[in-house]
């Protein structure tokens, strides 16, 4: 999928663990893990809002678009 999540990068920048974030926003670690691995099909605005609030960032900091060609060159 061309959309990739930079949740792990933001967590590292904020020196926060996934468990801590899950406790703060009330979402299970399993679901956050799906989001972190980029396996999620969709993200609710409420979830995005909560993550941005706790990590003090913009949605663009968590999600980024990479075109197909870029993904191939990266591989």
């Amino acid at each position: 999928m061309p959309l990739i999540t930079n949740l792990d990068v933001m967590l590292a920048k904020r020196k926060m663990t996934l468990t801590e974030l899950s406790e703060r926003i009330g979402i299970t670690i399993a679901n956050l893990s799906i989001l972190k691995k980029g396996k999620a099909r969709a993200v609710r605005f409420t979830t995005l809002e909560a993550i941005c609030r706790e990590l003090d960032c913009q949605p663009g900091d968590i999600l980024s678009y990479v075109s197909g060609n870029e993904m191939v060159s990266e591989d």
Partner: protein
Amino acid sequence: MSGKYPFIKAISVILRIIWYLQWIFLSALIIISILIVTKSSIIDINKISGFHIQFEKIDIQNITSNIDKSQGHVYLSNGEGRLHMKNSSQNFIFFRLFNVFIDTLLYILIIYLLQKIFLSLKTGVFFVKENGVYIKKIAYAVLGIALLPDLINYFINLHITETLEIDGIILKARFNFDLRTTFLALIIFVIAKVFIKGAELKEEHDLTI
């Protein structure tokens, strides 16, 4: 889950028994076929060649009244009447065996797929796309059961009408379309499609964070 729903366990056991019975039946069919092909003395081919040929409609009065006359009418297909054939071609037996083979294989496939679905019921992971695919395969198998035996019967009857001569009777082959089973197959097919779509929506819902 099987503890909560003992009927699932009971049906699974019944399916398992039917599964083994089907295989025993298929094995017996294969043995009989081999014996016929090898012209073994164990099977009296003359007795088997007196196979019962089924008719959808058999006009007994017509036969009895016309049997000594020049012509009569009989419609060949599955169902109500039977005619015992003597000194008939060995080909009839192979056609019939082929018909039973196809039927048995389709039933074995259905039982196998049902067992898989019931296994997922036991484990609790039921609403998945795989089960929808199994249901769709069952629909195809039911469609096969609805059409294939009748189609093969039709060709047997065509073969009979071309090769068998009975004084005073004109044999007619007719395709007996099993509408009810075909409808059943279509309904199962629709259910499978809805199930697959439902499983996809569930998956999407599960993966929405």
